[in-house]
C-alpha cells in the first residue's frame, strides 16, 4: 500500500529525517514509536506532502507520490490526522466535517451521520464553533474529519492524545474494525499500550532514522527490545 524509501526531509536548513524507510502493507496497522522530537510527525508530513522530502521516494498503491501537492495526495486516498489537531476554528463542527467530505468507497463510506454515530459527543455539539471545543472534542473532530475523506490509508498522529480513557477504548476498537474492513493505518503514538495492542507491525524512530522494525510481537513481548529502543 505505502512504501517509503530512504526519505530525507529538511525544515529550511535543518536536516530532520535521515533516510527513513518504512512500509505499510494493505490492511495492516503499522505504528511508529519514538520519543519527542524523534521525527514521527515529520515522517507523516513528508508522506502527506506538507514537508516534501528532498530525497527519497514515497509510493502509494504502487505510484510515486513524492513531490505531489498535499491536496492531490489526499485525493489519492490518504487521510491525515495531525498531532496538533488544527481544526478549522471558525467553522462549526458540522461544517468542518462537511467540507472534508469526499464520496468514495461505496456502502461503507463515511458520512456525517456515521461520524456522529461514531462520536456521539460530536453529534451533540454539531453547531458549535470548532475553536471553542474542548481538547478532546477537537481531537475527535480531527479524526472524524480525516474519516470523511474516506481514505484507504489513514495517517494517525497521536490520535488518542487528550481523549478520555473510555473514548480511547472505543477508538481503539473502531480502528481495529476499520483495519478489518481493509483500511491501512499508519499510527504514531505516545500511548504505547494502545499502540502495541493495535498494531501489526512496528517501527522505532530516533533522531530521524529508523532504529528498529519488526513484527509487533517482538516489541510487545521482548522486554529488552522495548527497553533498548523505547527507553521505558
Amino acid at each position, binding site marked *: 500500500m505505502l512504501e517509503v524509501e530512504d526519505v530525507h526531509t529538511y525544515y529550511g536548513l535543518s536536516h530532520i529525517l535521515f533516510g527513513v524507510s518504512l512500509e505499510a502493507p494493505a490492511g495492516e496497522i503499522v505504528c511508529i514509536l519514538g*520519543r519527542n522530537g*524523534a521525527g514521527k510527525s515529520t515522517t507523516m508530513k513528508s508522506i502527506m506532502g506538507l514537508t516534501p522530502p528532498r530525497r527519497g521516494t514515497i509510493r502509494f498503491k504502487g505510484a510515486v507520490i513524492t513531490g505531489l501537492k498535499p491536496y492531490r495526495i489526499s485525493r489519492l486516498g490518504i487521510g491525515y490526522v495531525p*498531532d496538533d489537531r488544527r481544526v478549522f476554528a471558525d467553522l462549526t463542527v458540522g461544517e468542518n466535517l462537511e467540507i472534508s467530505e469526499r464520496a468514495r468507497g461505496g456502502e461503507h463510506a463515511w458520512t456525517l451521520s456515521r461520524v456522529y454515530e461514531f462520536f456521539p459527543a460530536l453529534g451533540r455539539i454539531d453547531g458549535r464553533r470548532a475553536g*471553542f471545543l*474542548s481538547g478532546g472534542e477537537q481531537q475527535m473532530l480531527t479524526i472524524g474529519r480525516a474519516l470523511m475523506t474516506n481514505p484507504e490509508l489513514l495517517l494517525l498522529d497521536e490520535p488518542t*492524545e487528550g481523549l478520555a480513557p473510555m473514548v480511547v*477504548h472505543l477508538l481503539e476498537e473502531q480502528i481495529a474494525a476499520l483495519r478489518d474492513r481493509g483500511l491501512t493505518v499508519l499510527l504514531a503514538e*505516545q500511548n504505547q499500550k494502545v499502540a502495541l495492542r493495535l498494531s501489526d507491525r512496528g517501527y522505532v524512530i530516533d533522531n530521524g532514522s529508523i532504529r528498529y522494525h519488526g513484527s509487533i510481537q517482538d516489541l510487545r513481548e521482548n522486554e529488552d527490545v522495548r527497553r533498548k529502543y523505547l*527507553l521505558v
Partner: protein
Amino acid sequence: MLQVESLTKSFDGFLAVSGANLSVERGEIVAVIGPNGAGKTTLFKLITGHLRPDEGRIIFEGQSISGLRPYEVCRRGISLSFQVVNVFNRMTVFENVQVAVLSHQKKTRKLFSSSGRHGIEETEEILGNVGLADKARRVSGSLSHGDQKVLEMAIALGNRPDLLILDEPTAGMSPEETSVTIDLIHRLTRELGLTILFCEHDMELVFSIAHRIMVMQYGRSLIQGAPQEVRSNEEVQAAYLGGT
C-alpha cells in the same frame, strides 16, 4: 489555599461549568478528571482569569480573585500551563522562559539594560529541570509537539507560582518525558512546597501522584476525595473510568 465555590459559566446558554466546587490545600497535588468536554479546561481558565465567571466565587489565599485579569491572577501566584500549546513561536526556548522570569521579577519595564543580565540563572535552572537545556537556543516554533508541551510547563514555572495549574501536562509527551515530568512534579511539591492542580486522562499517572482527585461531568463537580475513594465510586466508574 484555593477555594472554588459554585462556579458557573455558560456559553450561549450552554453550561460548560455549572456550580463546580473545588478546594486545594497548600502543598497538595490535586487532580481533576472527567470525560471530554466536562469543563475542566474551562474551570482552569476561570480560575486564571482567561474567562469571567457568571456566578460563584474563587478565593485564593483568603482573597477573592474572580474577575481579575489574567496578569493580575498570575501576579497573585497562580500559573497556568495550557492544554493546547501556547508558546512564543518566534522566540528561542530560552527567551520563552526568560520572559516569564522577567515578568516575575518585575523587570519587564527596564528600558536601558541588557536582557542578557537578567533572569539568566533562574531560566537556566528551569530549563535544566524540565530537560530542555540542550534545546535552549532553538526557536520554539520548530520544536516537536511533545517538546512544546514541556516548554509550556517550563514557562508556567518561570513565574515561580505558589499554585501551578497544569492542563493535561503529559499529553503528547513520550513515556520518557512523562516520567521526567512526574519526577519534576514530585520534586516541586517536596522541595519548593509548590501546590499543583492538574487534569489528565492518563489514569495511571493520576492515581499515582494525586493526593486528592476531583471528578467533573457535564460541568458539575461529582466528588472530590482521596484516590481510593474516587476509584471505588460507582458513578465515576460508570461515567468515566469505564474499561480501566
